[in-house]
């Protein structure tokens, strides 16, 4: 009974689990170590913007963590993040509380075109509003897309699947 359940449902259950893991939106997450740090002077508040992408390409998810200082946290600041493009384009970032520290804000931004973009951070709280920003150079989109990269990277799994099938046949031929 147990054997039947596990051997029949193991692979679909694992596929569901992987889907679950990949479905978790990484918008509020970021790499372990920031690549750059920018001080922010936002009117009555101050803080830091941590950039987790060392190189930014057009189409990449840009991860910025906004860390308000203690005063700004007490004032309950809310952030807005926008990217101002060289041709006048404006893109608003998706914001979420940081997964590791709810007092910080994680911004997720996709810039579609190369060029020098200005990242503008606006903080609004009980003691007023203030803005600051920093310049972000964006490279052209890479020739090898993320999808193509993953397709190449996971291709050895075909060999693993073939090997697993061979071993399963061997296992069935063993009478224990």
């Amino acid at each position: 009974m147990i054997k039947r359940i596990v051997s029949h449902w193991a692979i679909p259950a694992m596929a569901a689990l992987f889907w679950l893991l990949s479905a978790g939106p990484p918008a509020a997450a970021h790499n372990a170590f920031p690549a750059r740090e920018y001080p922010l002077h936002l009117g009555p508040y101050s803080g830091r913007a941590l950039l987790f992408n060392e190189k930014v390409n057009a189409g990449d998810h840009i991860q910025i963590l906004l860390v308000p200082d203690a005063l700004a946290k007490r004032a309950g600041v809310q952030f807005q993040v926008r990217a101002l493009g060289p041709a006048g384009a404006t893109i608003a970032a998706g914001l979420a509380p940081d997964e590791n520290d709810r007092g910080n804000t994680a911004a997720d931004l996709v810039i579609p075109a190369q060029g020098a973009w200005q990242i503008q951070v606006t903080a609004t709280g009980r003691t007023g509003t203030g803005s600051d920003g920093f310049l972000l150079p964006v490279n052209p989109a890479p020739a090898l897309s993320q999808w193509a990269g993953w397709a190449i990277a996971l291709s050895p799994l075909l060999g693993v699947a073939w090997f697993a099938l061979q071993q399963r046949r061997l296992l069935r031929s063993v009478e224990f």
Partner: protein
Amino acid sequence: MSAGSVQVGRVVPLPVAAEDTQAAERRESRVRRVLAACIALGFGASIIGVGWDVQWHAAVGRDSFFIPSHLMLYSGVIIAGVLSLALVLRDSRLWRKPGSGVSDANTVHVLGRFYGPIGFIVCGFGMLTLLIAAPFDNDWHELYGIDVTVWAAFHVMGILGAAIGGLGLIYMVASEANRAAAPRPAAEPRPWSPLNGLVVAALAFLLPAPMVLLLPAALQWPTTEIGPLAFLTYPVMVALMTPLVLIAAVRFTGRVGAATLVGLLFTALRLAMVWLAPALTSLLATALHETYRPYAPEYPLVASIYPAWMIVGGLVVDGVYWLAARRSGAPAEHSLRPALIGGVLAMLAMHALDALVVMNGWDLLWDRVWWRPLSMGHDPGYVAMALTLGTLLIVPPALFSAWLGNGLGTVLRVVRQ
């Protein structure tokens, strides 16, 4: 001994004396064991190289492909890959010579004209995967920078290659252990011979490479959030990898104690990495006048994400097998039930200790803070939900991993090629 007589333009092999064949097979076995030992040393260098490399990336940076940790990592890969390829080419030639000690009894047939031991073929495939991943990975770093996450396409490809190579090493040693001993009934325990011990050791050292994938689960995405729900990512991933080796060890040896031995060996490796990775990084950074990055970790990065309680997991698995054998009055190693129960209970025990200790940011073994405590920055309700759901979600991957481990252990008992 190879011999033939010419008969109307056709070579007809003469029968070869059985003792000559046995001597040739023994010679072939010796060659395979020497090469397997060299490959194991190469893997050892690569495992240390990976730990050092991750530490170097985080502490100093990835200034070029030819950083010392990469050279150590890839030298091990090249040793393993070249030796695997050499043996397969040699065996493909010898297979055609009767009495050479290479036959269908100790090789498998692949890609039309190649013959070789399955372990060397699998290992060669893994090393090829890793070597193909290397230039792509270098390109990826140039595109996305030095801080590309471990869950990037060509990191995953490289880790997949290393895991395949590790599996190949296990098959190499298991087939040697099986051919060295007379066939025995399935449930009969194997003796603690050096070869059987090496299979258990190879199982313990299968984990360090794929466990590098745990880094983001511990440091970047400690919780996975789906709508209003959140669960711990790390223990779910540990449960996918760990029971496999613990169960396979007991299943292969047919002995209670094998899973604990895997736990001990893994922990020994973990302790070595705790010391080696920061020490090598510091030593070389000083020698090369490199400066540390602003957020350089002071703790051993890779070792911090290796499960701290593998010995406990091994003890639980062995305990379940021991109880099953006592209850049935017969060896229980061939039954799937203790494998599944043991796998799940081991993971729950390890997770309970992790939840109390590591998930709170420190490790009892080292008495220092490694991870950011989950309780910091989250309200207690969120922490409780992540812990509870994380605990429940351990069960499916633990069952899957235990099932795979039971299958792997069974195959390892019989593989002779």
